[in-house]
């Protein structure tokens, strides 16, 4: 049976330190850890990115596959987001265990991309009603040092933004790949920001030791135009409505800061992709 004595002591320390605006690793309550983005690391994928936030590391890959459309949207391509926890990412992951945490992570990353409507799925149709491109976006958690959601969302986004798509020539019922690459039909840079509540304080970008003692978690994604496009409260604590309003305020600022960083790191032409 799990023991919770150490976390209780740790929690007290974290809260006390926060009273003077500090954190165990020296950050302020609203600081992110260092963010690194490396794209194109898997050249067999149509897009890929290795992203780290502090010690947390996630790799994402984008692959195209020809498949069937959904019957209710016969002329649109399909985006499928998956999340896998590589067992070496944390001593707590067991190989092969289906995990609600992985399912939630995949679905939160999915919603951040999907609801912001950055992918023009109508441009992924090959033969209307019959064949479309399936875009697989898979994130692999390689190192878990806290804040998986933001890291995974950023990895998926970076892989998508730097992906290209295969050109297909459609003649009747036949689909032939020309070998050329086309730009991804993508616009926008939705950014997810996660905060943890510990005691009655909010911590941006929680570290693993903060996550071990948190009360609950709040994630919100913003589009470049300031629209909110996904929210997820997590874990078995609660927020007051006032705390949530405050969390959204903080996250809005942080999302702009990170978006700037992404534009810079990915050398995005600000006008072409997701002009803010």
């Amino acid at each position, binding site marked *: 049976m799990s023991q919770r004595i150490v976390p209780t002591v740790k929690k007290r320390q974290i809260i006390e330190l926060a009273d003077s605006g500090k954190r165990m690793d020296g950050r302020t309550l609203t600081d992110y850890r260092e963010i690194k983005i490396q794209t194109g690391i898997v050249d067999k994928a149509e897009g890929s990115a290795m992203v780290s936030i502090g010690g947390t590391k996630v790799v994402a890959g984008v692959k195209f596959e020809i498949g069937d459309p959904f019957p209710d949207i016969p002329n649109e391509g399909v985006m499928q987001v998956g999340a896998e926890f590589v067992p070496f990412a944390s001593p707590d992951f067991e190989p092969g265990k289906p995990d*609600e945490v992985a399912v939630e992570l995949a679905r939160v990353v999915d919603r951040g991309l999907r*609801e912001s409507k950055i992918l023009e799925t109508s441009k992924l149709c090959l033969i209307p009603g019959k064949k479309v491109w399936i875009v697989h976006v898979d994130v692999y958690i390689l190192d878990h040092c806290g804040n998986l959601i933001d890291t995974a969302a950023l990895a998926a986004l970076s892989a998508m933004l730097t992906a290209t798509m295969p050109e297909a020539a459609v003649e009747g019922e036949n689909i032939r790949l020309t070998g050329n690459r086309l730009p991804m039909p993508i616009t926008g840079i939705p950014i997810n920001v996660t905060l943890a509540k510990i005691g009655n304080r909010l911590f941006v970008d929680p570290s693993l030791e903060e996550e071990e003692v948190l009360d*609950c978690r709040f994630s919100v994604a913003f589009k470049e135009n*300031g*629209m*909110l496009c996904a*929210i997820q409260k*997590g874990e078995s604590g*609660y927020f*007051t409505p006032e705390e949530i309003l405050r969390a959204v305020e903080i996250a809005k600022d942080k999302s702009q800061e990170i978006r700037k960083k992404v534009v810079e790191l990915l050398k995005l032409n600000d006008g072409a992709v997701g002009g803010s």
Partner: protein
Amino acid sequence: MEELKTRLISDDGIRCDGRRLDEIRPIKFQIGVLNNTDGSAYVEWGRTKILVGVMGPRESHPKHLALSDKARVEAYYRMASFSVEEWKSPAPSRREVELSKVIREALEPAIFVELFPRTSIDIFIEVLQADGSTRCASISAASLALVDAGIPMRDLVASIAVGKVEGKLVLDVQDKEDKAGDSDMPMAYMPSKNAVTLLQMDGQITHDEFIQSMELLKKGCLEVYKKQKEAIEAHFKGAISNVEEA
């Protein structure tokens, strides 16, 4: 398809099912409806119909999952194969797995879990018919099932969703509004603790709309809360009159 093109909100702010923008659907809770559980509840929420059964506190199984300092709470949200438009395979979907998790996390803060170390409390939810807001209806009914099981609670958890339809915020979205709408934002709330235990959002809203939504959600949760309390009262009055008859 044609149906969706017709407007969902009339010029005088009346929705397709006759409700005002901030009006919730008819909600009918029933407590103590199953024979083999420790507590149970049934809810009809518009056309949405859900049964909830609670087992526990009981011995954890397998034992190594037991927690030394509190009860282990699990929720299982499942949809019957015939509850939705298209036949659904009984194998749990990823959506059902995620909803089970957020429903558990919405309910656990209300339970005095520290009173029952080494035990399990299992909340089983079966959606018989789904017409929007099934997670809200599940959480609200599960609160009553937990009360029926005699499990000490900090407060009832009331839950409702706000959507954005044709540019307007509407309370308690039904399926048709959800599919045609621009966003869906469910919240779970313990009124007496001012505690938000679930908050999710799909779609796109402005910061201002978010702030208004939070207000509307609190109002809606209070209405659900009132109906929950009425259901408890009716149930215990029934229980007392049963005792008197005996």
